Structures are given as structure tokens and as C-alpha cells.
């Protein structure tokens, strides 16, 4: 079958370059290690926290603190999977071999997403359990209400970040340009928009802010966010769909 051929080919591509290993490896290590570090710090400073902070203390969410940095490696993974085709010129070989561009892009994104999903889920569960181990008697249990949802959601969040990056790279057709936009956006701009009161309400509809809601178990006290954990993930998924549709439209229309 033609679709199976494309998937096999894309799997060969993705497993045969070093960037796959180091980007995903970095995502795993950074997310887990930073989560453990911040969990340990939170435990040691728990007694100095305000009453409200202690009341809304969310041990599950704390163990995912490394996601903010680990997601950057996921972005690099997603951008390189698609963008390298353009920067290397491989795209011309690829499209000569698979001229149906929709099938080509779908196969590539399917393979990269499946790999990202497996790695993200392992990362998410490892970050949770190792983070809880750092929290001692403050720890949450995987059986507590909402915790399993948050842990699975953490894996989905990382996967969606990678998919969003693939879509953006397909639209911009350049890894450097894509990284130059995505990195500052997720590392700085989204955070700034989210913490300035004037833009806070807009900021919460950005893909990372909406999506990360799924990792929260305890809702903050003065919470007025108009969506729940799955609603937030849904908003993020809409961003991903928009990026992928945009990427497909560009690939379909432009000369290779």
C-alpha cells in the first residue's frame, strides 16, 4: 500500500538522523530533571509559603515544572523533522518519490507524532513519579482525582507542541526562521502576555497556556479561566490543526 510505503520511508528518515535522538533525549532529560529540582525546592520551602499558596499547592503540576523548558527541545524536534527537508534540498527528492504532497506530509507527521507521543508519555510519567519522590509527604498519588488525567495530559501537551512546530515549519519552509519565531514565542512572549493584566485574557488562549491547563489538578483560588482541562487542550488542538492545515496549503501550492 502506498500509505504504508510512505510511513516506512519516513520512519527510515527519522531514525537515521542524529537530531532525532538529541532533541528527544534533551526533552526527556530537561523535563524530568528540572521537574525534580523544582519539586525538591518546593518541598524545602513549603513551610515558608503563604497560607493560600499552601492551600492551593499542586504537587502534580509542580512535578511538570520542567515542561516549560523541555518543550523547547520538543519544538526543535518538530521543526527539524519538517524543516530539514527544505534546508537540505531533500524535499525535491522526497516529492519526486512521493508526488502526492498530502500523502507525503501526512506520512511524515504521522510518524513524527507517533514517536513524539511515545517519548512524551514516558517523559510525563517519569516526571510525575520522580517529582513526587522529591516531594516526600507532600506528594500526590496517581490514584488521586484528576492526577492520572494530568499525567496523561502532560504527555499529550508535549506531543501537541511538537505537532504545532511541524505545522509552522511546513508553512515557513525554513528551520532557522521557524525556530526564530517559535522559541522566543513559547519561552518569552507567551509568558509576558499571560502575566500582564491587560493581555492576560488573550494570553490564556495561546496554545501553550491553554494546553498546560490539563496538567493542573488543584485550581487556583481566584480562577476565572473560562475553560477546563480538556477544553484547554481542545483549544491547543485547534491551534495545531490550524498550523497543519496552513502547512499543507503551503506545500500544496508552492514550487518545491
Amino acid at each position, binding site marked *: 500500500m502506498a500509505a504504508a510505503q510512505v510511513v516506512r520511508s519516513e520512519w527510515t528518515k527519522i531514525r537515521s*538522523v542524529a537530531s532525532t535522538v538529541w532533541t528527544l533525549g534533551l526533552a526527556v532529560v530537561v523535563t524530568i530533571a528540572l521537574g525534580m529540582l523544582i519539586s525538591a525546592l518546593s518541598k524545602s520551602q513549603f513551610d515558608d509559603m503563604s497560607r493560600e499558596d499552601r492551600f492551593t499547592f499542586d504537587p502534580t503540576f509542580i512535578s511538570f515544572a520542567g515542561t516549560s523548558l523541555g518543550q523547547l527541545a520538543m519544538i526543535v524536534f518538530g521543526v527539524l523533522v519538517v524543516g530539514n527537508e527544505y534546508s537540505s534540498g531533500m524535499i*525535491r527528492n522526497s516529492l*519526486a518519490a512521493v508526488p502526492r504532497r498530502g500523502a507525503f506530509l501526512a506520512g511524515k507527521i504521522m510518524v513524527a507524532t507517533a514517536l513524539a507521543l511515545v517519548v512524551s508519555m514516558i517523559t510525563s510519567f517519569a516526571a510525575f513519579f520522580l517529582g513526587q519522590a522529591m516531594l516526600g509527604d507532600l506528594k500526590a498519588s496517581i490514584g488521586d482525582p484528576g492526577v492520572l488525567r494530568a499525567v496523561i495530559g502532560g504527555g499529550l501537551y508535549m506531543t501537541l507542541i511538537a505537532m504545532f512546530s511541524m505545522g509552522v515549519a511546513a508553512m515557513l519552509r525554513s528551520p532557522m526562521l521557524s525556530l526564530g519565531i517559535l522559541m522566543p514565542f513559547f519561552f518569552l512572549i507567551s509568558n509576558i502576555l499571560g502575566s500582564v493584566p491587560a493581555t492576560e485574557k488573550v494570553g490564556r488562549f495561546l496554545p501553550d497556556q491553554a494546553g498546560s491547563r490539563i496538567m493542573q489538578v488543584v485550581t487556583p483560588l481566584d480562577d476565572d479561566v473560562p475553560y477546563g482541562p480538556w477544553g484547554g487542550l481542545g483549544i491547543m488542538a485547534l491551534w495545531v490543526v490550524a498550523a497543519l492545515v496552513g502547512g499543507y496549503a503551503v506545500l500544496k501550492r508552492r514550487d518545491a
Partner: protein
Amino acid sequence: MIELEGLTKRYGEKVAVNNLSFTVRPGIITGFLGPNGAGKSTTMRMVLGLDRPTSGDVRIDGKHYDQLKDPLTYIGALLEAKAWHGGRSAYNHLLCLAQSNGIPASRVREVLDTVGLTAVARKKTKGFSLGMGQRLGIAGALLGDPRMLMFDEPVNGLDPEGIHWIRNLMKTLAAQGRTVFVSSHLMSEMALTADHLVVIGQGRLLADTSMAEFIAENSRSYVRIRTPQREQLLDALQGAGIKVAEPGAEALEVDGDIAQAVGELAARHQIVLHELSPQRASLEEAFMQLTAESVEYHAHDGQPPGAAPGQQQPGQPPQQPWGSDWKRG
């Protein structure tokens, strides 16, 4: 068989390929000749469906490229050097192409062997020399054992041994009955390999003829003569009914392959000769003249049909004649 019909590609105002129609037939090597920037690569990319034609049509055995199932088994192409990820090994590069077209992995080893890259098959391609890169590109073209092959400037940057290898490979492929379509900006290269010749300049068709015909029409042979007794020789030649092509020049030129006759004539008249040499105008010159002429013709004739308006605005310096670019390339 590759058929182009009214193929046109515009980039904004610029016409890269202008109403090209010709057919590339099986069993022979068809040379695709034109100066740098004439639109050869663009045409080849349109054959593969990579670039979309503004108008017109290309068909591979009667089908559009994207209608081909497993296209690498129909037509293999060497497009440009290094169209692959440098971090991937040669074997894996070919393997991913093979898998996408349902070609077995054993074929990857076969083509690596054919092009002589077996020893470096597991090495990353970013360390490859230009020649190794060309060989890898050709291995990719051969991968699907296609009936049609298309090579864009395959001898570019190769050493003499590599050039020899590619020439022989193309001849072998054509002798097997395959369609071989090869581009070059060097007439001398085409003269050695091609059976049929398609010449383009500024994106438009200038010639579509057999190589033998092109040589017969365009290679003028003549004899160059130098003598201190110029006037006597001119008289003697006139007396023998031999026409002098360039009587004003320092060296005399007479048309035809008649050095022997001229020498004997001079001896009979006891005229001293300092030079008596048979010459042949190169095909390269013929090619340059062909591409240059096409533009002169249009320059006298106003704007070329189909050219975008505003291409020759008043006040702008006149466009350089065609062929002047070619010498630099």
C-alpha cells in the same frame, strides 16, 4: 517517452520557460542544451511535478507525474548535487527513497555497487566530495530501474575519470532502450554523448534536431593560409577558381577541406607559405551563434511574443545580447 507541450513557467514578470514543445524519445540520448539560466533546470523540475507550469503540459508515457504509481520506477532523475540530508548515510538516504516506492532494500545495495559507493555506504553524506555526491544522485536515479532517466548537468565538477564514467553509463542506458534526457551548457560535452539535440535559450526552443544534422549544418571546415606573397597567392587562388572567404584579414581563409590542393597550387606558382592549416569551426561557436542570434532576431522585431510588458522600459540600459552571459559561465 517524455512529452512537453506548450510548457511555460513565469516567475512574476520573468518568463523562465516559454512555450516549450518537444518529445524525448526512448533508445537514444537526448541532449538538452542551453546557456546558464536558459530554463533547463526549471523545465526538468516541471517534468517531475516539483514546479507547477504556468501553462502547458508535461506527460510521462502519457500520464502526469503525480498520476504515476511509484514514480521512481518510471523515471529517475539526478536533479542537482546534494539534494539530501548531510547527516544521513548514503545507504539510509537511498533506503528511504526505495521504501517510499516499494523498492526492495536489496536494490539499494545493487545501485550503490553500480556507482561504486559500497565502501562509503554507511558514511554520512556531508563528507562526500562533489564526485561522490554526483554518484549518489545517480544511484538515486537508477534505484527504481526506470525506463526513463533525466540528468541535470551530470558532469558538472567531475574529474575526467568521472566524466568518462557518466558518458559510458548514459550510452549503456540508452543502448538498453531507455529514454535518456541530459542537460548541459557545454556543446562539446553534448557532441560526445548525445544522439539528439534540443537547444533552448531564454526559455524558448531554438533547435530540435539530430546531433549528426546539427554537426553537418554547423561545422564549417576551412583552410588558413599565411604567406609573405599575398597578392600572388590571391591571384593564383582566383585563377584556380578557389574563393577566399576573408580576403581582408591578415591570414587568408578558404572554405572546404582543401589544404592539399592549396599547397600544390602554391608550389606550382613558387609561392612561399608560412602557414597552411586545415581548420574546423567548433560546435561551441555554432551553439553560441545560435543562442545569440535568437535574441538579435527578437531585438529587431520588437518585444518577443509572450514577454511580460514592462520588460524593456525606456530609459533602462538595453538588455545584453544573448550569449554574452554564456562566455562567463
